C-alpha cells in the first residue's frame, strides 16, 4: 500500500475476528518494520514479545485484562507487547553503536564524528543523561520499588517505543491486518512470561483481522490543527493550507471523519456478531 493510504486507513480497531489466526509471516513482516525504525541516540532499546492468545489458558487471559481492555483481548488472536531494555543505554554499548556507524560512513568527520570528539564531547553528554540524579522506577503499580532509570533515559526509552509502535501499527495495516494500542496488566505479564526487571513496559498492540469494517466508522476526530503545530515560535500557528488538505484527501490520507451515519447500527450489529451486550 502507499504510505499515505496506510496512514489514512489506520484506526484503533476494537473488533477483531477471534476465529482467524494471523499468519506468522505477517507477524514477522511487522517485526521487521520495527527492526528498521530509527533509534533514539542509536540505542537498541526495543524488545517485543509476541503473545498468542490461544496459547494462554482462559484464566491466564482473564488476568491480563484491565478495567479498560476486556473484550478486545478476548478477540485479538495476537498481542505484541512492547518493552524498552533500559540496560541498552550503557556507555560501552552506545560507544560501540556509534563507532560502528562511524566505521560504516554513516556518521562522518564532516559532522564532528571522530573518536577524539566522541571521547571529549559525545560520550560525556550521553553519560550525563544516564547519570541524571532524577530517577524514576522502571515499573509502576505493584511492581514499583524495583530498579530505576534516570528520567532522561526513561524519556528516550518511551520515545523509542512510540516510534516502534508507529512502524508496527502501519505495517499491520499494510499487511491487511488491523491493530490497536491498548492496555494490559503488565504486572501479570511480567510474572507470567518472566520479563526481566530492566525492561520498561508499554502499551501492547492487539493484532488480528478486523471484525468491524476497516473504516471503523470514519477517521477519528482531532483537535484543531493549529492547536498542535506552530511555525517559528510557540503561539504562531502553522497555517493550514486548504489545498494541501485537499491533496491529502485525494491521496487517501485524510479520509471521511467519524461518525459515519450508520456507525451506531454497525456497532449494534457487531455486538450481535460477537455475542456482546449493546
Amino acid at each position, binding site marked *: 500500500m502507499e504510505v499515505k493510504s496506510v496512514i489514512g486507513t489506520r484506526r484503533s480497531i476494537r*473488533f477483531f475476528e477471534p476465529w482467524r489466526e494471523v499468519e506468522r509471516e505477517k507477524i514477522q513482516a511487522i517485526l521487521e518494520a520495527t527492526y528498521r525504525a530509527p533509534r533514539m541516540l542509536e540505542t537498541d532499546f526495543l524488545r517485543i514479545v509476541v503473545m498468542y492468545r490461544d496459547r494462554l489458558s482462559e484464566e491466564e487471559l482473564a488476568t491480563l485484562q484491565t478495567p479498560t481492555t476486556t473484550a478486545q483481548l478476548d478477540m485479538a488472536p495476537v498481542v505484541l507487547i512492547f518493552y524498552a531494555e533500559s540496560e541498552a543505554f550503557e556507555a560501552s554499548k552506545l560507544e560501540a553503536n556509534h563507532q560502528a556507524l562511524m566505521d*560504516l560512513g554513516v556518521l562522518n568527520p564532516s559532522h564532528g564524528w571522530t573518536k577524539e570528539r566522541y571521547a571529549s*564531547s559525545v560520550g560525556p553528554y550521553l553519560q550525563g543523561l544516564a547519570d541524571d540524579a532524577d530517577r524514576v522506577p522502571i515499573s509502576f503499580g505493584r511492581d514499583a520499588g524495583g530498579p530505576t532509570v534516570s528520567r532522561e533515559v526513561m524519556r528516550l526509552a*518511551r520515545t523509542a517505543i512510540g516510534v516502534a*509502535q508507529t512502524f508496527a501499527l*502501519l505495517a499491520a495495516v499494510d499487511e491487511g491486518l488491523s491493530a490497536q494500542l491498548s492496555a494490559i496488566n503488565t504486572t501479570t505479564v511480567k510474572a507470567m512470561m518472566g*520479563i526481566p526487571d530492566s525492561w520498561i513496559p508499554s502499551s501492547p498492540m492487539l493484532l488480528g483481522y478486523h471484525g468491524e469494517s476497516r473504516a471503523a466508522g470514519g477517521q477519528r476526530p482531532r483537535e484543531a490543527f493549529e492547536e498542535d503545530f*506552530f511555525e517559528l515560535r*510557540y503561539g504562531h500557528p502553522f497555517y493550514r493550507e486548504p489545498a494541501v488538505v485537499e491533496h491529502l484527501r485525494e491521496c487517501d490520507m485524510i479520509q471521511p471523519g467519524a*461518525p459515519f451515519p450508520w456507525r451506531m447500527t454497525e456497532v449494534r450489529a457487531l455486538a450481535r456478531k460477537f455475542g456482546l451486550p449493546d
Partner: protein
Amino acid sequence: MEFKKAVGGVRTYQYFEPWHPVERGKVQTILEAGRLASRAVNTAFSKAIVAYRDSLSVEERELFKTPLSAALFDVAPVVIFWYYDMDARRQAVEEKKWPTVASGTLVGIGALGPPHGWSHRYVQQVVLPEVLTPGLEAGPQRGGNPDAGVGMAQGLLAALDEGLAVCLAPFDEEGARKVLRTPETWEPVTAMFVGYPAESVEAAGQEPRPDFESMFFEQSPDQPFVRDDAVTARLREQGLIQRAAPVPWRRPEARALSRMLELPTGDDVAGGN
C-alpha cells in the same frame, strides 16, 4: 511510495541541500501525518514547532546545538522540533478539552461503547476519576510519553514518502525555549531535520542492528522469534530490507559532500575515518 520501501529507506541522513527549500505543503504533510497518529484516550500529547534554517540567526542556531546535532543545524533547511505536552492529560480531563475519551467523544461516535463495557456514565463517573485523574495532582511529569514518539514517527514516514531526507537528533532544551518560547509544560522529544538529500538516497546503506532474535520473542523472552528466510526474501524484494551499509562508494561520496558543503572532510582530523 510503497509503505515497505519507505520503511526500508529509513536512514540517518546527514547531508542536505541547504539551498533547496522544502515546499511548505510537504512540511504540512508531515504535520498532518503526525496529527493522524494513534494516541492514548485520543489526547493531543504530540506538539511541534517548525523552524527554517534561513529564518534563524547563526546565534539562534548555536543555542539549539548538542554534541550529537551540531552540524545538522547548519545544513538542514527545515527543523521540526517535536515535543510532548505534559499538561495535555490534565487539559483533556479537567477542561474536557478536545475530542477525547474524557470529553465523551469516543463513546459518542461509536469508537468505544457498550459491546466493550463502555457507556457515557462509565466514562464520566468511573474512568475519569479512577483511571485518568489519579496522578494529575502531582503536576506535569517529565520522562517522556510513547504517544509523542508515535506522532513524530508517523511524520517521519510521511517525509520519506515526500522524497525528503530526515534525521533525528537531540536539541538543547533551554536554548530552544529561548528561541521558540515553548511552554514550561513541553518536554522535548527530538529534533527532526528535514530537507532534500545532498547524498544518494541509499546514503551509507541500511544501518546495522543487533541480531533480530535478540530483540523479538514469542510468548516469553527465552523464546527468540526465529526469522523465516522466505519472509526476509519477500521483504527484500519489496524494498523493506535493502543493501546494508556501507555501500562501496560511501567514503568518496562523504568526502565530496563535505567539500561541497564546506564541512571538514576528515583528512585533516586526527583519527578521522
